[in-house]
């Protein structure tokens, strides 16, 4: 680019020397140039060709604005997602690493400080932490309870692994005081200084003072699981008669002598620790092995970001379509100018650079908006996520890699999009450009669609003339139409698909309910006779059925796998033998924990969806129906197989007769309650009751639950657990709603890009047809008629895209719903296509189209005939 002298210097320089052409007759033109007419410094800032680019941009402000906004939206979306990812990677992982996360956690029946010391001494264990946990429920007032897990720590200041930090108040909490985990506090409806009534598992109630808060990044988001967490000292527990012991053990494996510390290695160390505990007579209820160096939420966050990232890129792609349309229109509109420029010496490369420069300016202007908005959005989104991930977001400056990605895509995507129209536009020969043998302005009349439209007039003479013009105009620029249509269609299809994911998520919850169709669960402090419990429950108004289900936690005893595929031996220090990972399915030994449910044979509260085999029959004895979650974990099991389960330490054989769909479920097996009762020696007795009411209203369930508790307490039975269906689903629905909202935001951005695309296309069309509009005006078209012709065209495009979007939405919704399900619940969601979404999109697209074409139409209808016919 050539820049020039400063503005101040020029007038005098020019006035001082009256220029003459080729010195032919210097005397004949001595007049000094009047400085007033040339003293415009602005024109010297840019060389003429860049001045042209600038003015082309500003002379079509609306068009430029739309393109810039459209790119900005796409770049913003990408920026927010990449930026959030970067901030999270840094801050979440830093916060997480700061608490010394453990490699594995073992849940036990209880162990003491000596055992902890012994485990810490194991050469394979680098460090270990222990905790005691107690499941209680906290009274929230007006009869509502919330599950609250109490933790006690052996040492409050020096915690080797999974560090809990004091956030406010005394640490450790004083006697009879509780420090509540900070995310749980709002759920308890309590403030610091309040007292809180806790009910212990045995039904005793104790009051504690909320004196402070703690921060424990390792806990699941309280709102997701609908439970609270708090910390008390062993001192407090001892006053409640609970002896000091530990129930969970966190370990970090020592670095292996050779090889990397991977999941399989940590699993082996965990197995060793488990062996040690079990040999010492402690039962291990569960083990959890983390993926080293990963935050537990990564498993959920990765698919979220993938999904949002794909949508972000898609919106960027759609904005690129508008760039293509706009630049193609600019090139078409400026054919003559290109011809002239070539005539006066501009080369192909210069012309290409000129228009690429224009696109670059679009990109730069878009970045001007998108960069700050993207950074703000990234922090905003991170803060939003931090509410669930329980870490503190600090401003650490602009996320640089996100910025780089934004700059890159903000400039490259439009440039790449513009390359083809610019190349083909710049290739025009001078003769084509200048002579009348050049390009027509959009070809109508060729191709089957055009012939059909022309013929339609013959067969549908009732179509009004303006409508016919709209129809034909729609198909005049087929390439442009295709891109606009694609933008709107994709936007619409994704909109419908996201709403379908939403209905599928709720459908999934409904299906889950069908598998567990009861409204209230009550737990008691001991086994009671089932008939008595049922009779008492049925006396409470609103209760229509009550059942007791047998329940147990069990593990499958896997058949021993061939020879050396058994539990691999742990390599002693220095020996790396047998370190290879064994595929879980091949491993002998025990399965993970499996839930066993034993509903009565005539249960009204379970309506399983069978995927294979049959449901339980009343006469079945050791028959089992397993759910699909079980099948996922124990892949070798088939219908008709006999499997061995260890229940209460005793092994028994069972025959698998059916597989039921597990919806939002864990690995579960079902058997008849009668046989199960006999097997476990608890026939006719149970410590819990499931209740069905005559209402579907969650508030009514809540009311009846309170009435039931009163009733049982009055009758002398002690209730230790009480929850309604809504409460149990709250966490799940909450998680779903977050996901849906994030998707909806992206959908909104896509719809925005679609709308901008349509508006851009319409204003391009109007600019191109200015002359034509003038002619229509000259032959008497009223303002209304012109408005109508243009708006009808826009709405027509909208409607056609809507029809296409609807068609595309079916497979897309299914795909998205399956993928979201697999990513977040491990199996496809119960698919439910959202018909209202189709109607909603019709409404939106019609409105957007009308608005998008109204603005350019209004501009067009305001032009006077003279202005229009002077238009070049």
């Amino acid at each position, binding site marked *: 680019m*050539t*820049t*020039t*002298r400063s503005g101040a210097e*020029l007038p005098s*320089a*020019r006035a001082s*020397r*009256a*220029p*003459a*052409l*080729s*010195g*032919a007759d210097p005397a004949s*033109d001595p*007049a000094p*140039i*009047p400085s007033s*007419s*040339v003293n*415009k410094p602005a*024109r*010297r800032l840019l*060389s*003429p*060709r860049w*001045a*042209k680019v600038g*003015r*082309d941009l500003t*002379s079509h402000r609306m068009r430029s604005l739309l393109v810039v906004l459209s790119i900005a939206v796409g770049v913003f979306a990408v920026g927010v997602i990449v930026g959030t990812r970067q901030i999270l990677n840094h801050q979440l992982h830093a916060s997480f690493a700061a608490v010394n996360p453990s490699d594995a956690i073992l849940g036990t029946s209880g162990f003491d400080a000596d055992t902890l010391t012994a485990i810490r001494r194991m050469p394979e264990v680098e460090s270990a932490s222990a905790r005691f946990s107690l499941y209680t429920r906290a009274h929230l007032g007006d009869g509502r309870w919330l599950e609250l897990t109490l933790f006690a720590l052996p040492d409050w200041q020096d915690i080797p692994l999974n560090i809990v930090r004091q956030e406010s108040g005394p640490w450790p909490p004083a006697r009879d005081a509780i420090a509540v985990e900070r995310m749980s506090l709002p759920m308890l409806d309590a403030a610091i200084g309040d007292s809180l009534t806790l009910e212990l598992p045995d039904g005793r109630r104790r009051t504690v003072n909320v004196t402070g808060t703690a921060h424990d990044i390792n806990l699941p988001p309280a709102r997701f699981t609908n439970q609270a967490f708090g910390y008390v000292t062993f001192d407090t527990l001892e006053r409640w008669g609970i002896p000091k012991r530990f129930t969970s053990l966190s370990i970090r494996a020592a670095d292996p002598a050779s090889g990397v510390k991977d999941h399989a290695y940590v699993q082996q160390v965990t197995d060793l620790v488990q062996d040690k505990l079990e040999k010492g007579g402690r039962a291990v209820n569960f083990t959890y092995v983390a993926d080293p160096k990963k935050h537990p939420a990564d498993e959920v966050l990765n698919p979220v970001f993938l999904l949002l990232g794909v949508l972000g890129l898609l919106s960027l792609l759609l904005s690129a379509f508008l760039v293509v349309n706009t630049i193609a229109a600019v090139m078409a509109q400026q054919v*003559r*100018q290109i*011809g*002239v*420029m*070539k*005539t*006066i*010496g*501009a*080369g*192909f*490369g*210069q012309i290409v650079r000129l228009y690429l420069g224009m696109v670059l300016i679009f990109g730069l202007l878009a970045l001007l908006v998108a960069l700050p908005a993207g950074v703000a959005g990234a922090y905003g989104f991170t803060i939003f996520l931090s509410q669930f991930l329980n870490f503190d977001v600090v401003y650490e400056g602009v996320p640089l890699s996100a910025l780089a990605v934004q700059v890159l895509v903000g400039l490259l995507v439009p440039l790449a999009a513009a390359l083809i129209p610019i190349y083909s536009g710049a290739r025009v*020969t*001078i*003769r084509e450009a*200048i*002579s009348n043998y050049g390009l027509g302005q959009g070809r109508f009349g060729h191709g089957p669609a055009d012939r059909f439209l022309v013929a339609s007039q013959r067969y549908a003479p009732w179509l009004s003339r303006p409508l016919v013009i709209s129809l034909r105009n729609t198909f005049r620029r087929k390439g442009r139409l295709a891109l606009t249509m694609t933008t709107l269609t994709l936007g619409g299809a994704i909109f419908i698909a996201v709403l379908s994911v939403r209905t599928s998520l709720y459908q999934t919850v409904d299906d889950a309910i069908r598998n567990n169709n009861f409204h209230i669960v009550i737990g008691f402090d001991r086994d009671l006779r089932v008939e008595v419990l049922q009779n008492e429950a049925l006396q409470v108004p609103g209760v229509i059925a009550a059942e007791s289900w047998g329940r147990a936690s069990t593990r499958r005893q896997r058949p021993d796998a061939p020879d050396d595929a058994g539990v691999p031996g742990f390599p002693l220090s220095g020996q790396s033998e047998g370190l290879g990972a064994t595929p879980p399915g091949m491993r002998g030994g025990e399965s993970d924990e499996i839930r066993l449910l034993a509903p009565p044979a005539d249960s009204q509260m379970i309506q399983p969806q069978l995927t294979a085999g049959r449901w339980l029959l009343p006469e079945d004895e050791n028959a089992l129906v397993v759910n699909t979650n079980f099948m996922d974990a124990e892949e070798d099991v088939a219908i008709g197989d006999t499997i061995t389960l260890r229940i209460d330490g005793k092994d028994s054989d069972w025959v698998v007769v059916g597989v039921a769909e597990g919806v939002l479920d864990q690995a579960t097996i079902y058997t008849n309650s009668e046989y199960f009762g006999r097997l476990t020696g608890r026939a006719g007795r149970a410590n819990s009751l499931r209740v069905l009411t005559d209402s579907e209203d969650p508030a009514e369930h809540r009311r009846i639950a309170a009435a039931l508790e009163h009733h049982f307490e009055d009758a002398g039975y002690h209730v230790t657990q009480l929850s309604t269906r809504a409460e149990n689903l709250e966490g799940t629905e909450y998680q779903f709603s977050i996901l849906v909202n994030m998707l909806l935001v992206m959908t909104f951005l896509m719809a925005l890009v679609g709308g901008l695309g349509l508006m851009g296309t319409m204003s391009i069309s109007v600019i191109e047809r200015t002359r034509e509009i003038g002619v229509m005006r000259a032959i008497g078209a009223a303002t209304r008629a012109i408005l109508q012709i243009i708006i009808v065209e826009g709405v027509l495009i909208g409607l056609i895209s809507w029809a296409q979007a609807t068609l595309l939405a079916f497979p897309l919704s299914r795909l998205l719903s399956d993928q979201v399900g697999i990513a977040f619940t491990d199996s496809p969601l119960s698919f439910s296509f959202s018909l209202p979404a189709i109607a909603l999109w019709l409404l939106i697209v019609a409105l957007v189209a009308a608005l998008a074409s109204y603005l350019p139409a209004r501009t067009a209808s305001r032009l006077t005939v003279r202005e229009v016919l*002077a238009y*070049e």
Partner: protein
Amino acid sequence: MLKLRAKSRPRPPAGAGGYHHGNTHLIDLRSVTKSYQTAAGEFPALRQIDLLVDRGEFVAVVGKSGSGKSTLINMVTGIDRPTAGQVLIGDTAVHTLSEGQMAVWRGKHVGVIFQFFQLLPTLTVLENVMLPMDFCNTYPSRARVQRAMALLEEVAMVEHADKLPSATSGGQQQRVAIARALANDPDIIVADEPTGNLDSKTADAVFQLFQRLVDEGKTILMVTHDEELARRAGRTVTIADGLIVSDTARGGRNGELGQ
């Protein structure tokens, strides 16, 4: 003193046979044929045209509409290429240039003037005149404004330098277009019906400008419908159906018959 000429090019005396390709004239069309493919088959717009134009000549090209005038002068500007034959201009065999070479060559050696002026609507008068220097990177960028102003002075458009073309009249626009054509100090000016869109008084002013340029040593090829103007040019070439049917010179400085 402002240097308005771009560079001094070798200027062999007329008829001395000093050009690279053995041509003795500045413009030498040899057996130029141009055919267009049309729906009705091959259409010959020019048939084996020979034309010699010397430096400093003022040639008016006349003929009926569709006779091939534009096609002929497009051969000289390189806007169109011959189907057969040679186009030699100065040291350049124009018909052999690539599109990119052609643009550079044309920008420096030929000034083109159109019937509809074709000023870029978003550039001011001054910027329009500067544009060829910008594209061809002739003249140091700081000298361009001054040169453009000098050219506008020449065509009496200085006081309109900062106006957009749309704010000026047709005659004024054509004068700006002439100034633009002169920007890189080309030897040859080619104008296709430059006065076709102007009233006779304005047309006369434009013609006088041309006359002055010829006096200053430029070579001009001008297509016109105006017989009166054609007569006043030094030489008139008449085209009919793609053939030169007459070529007459009037007495005067350039009074030499091309053929």
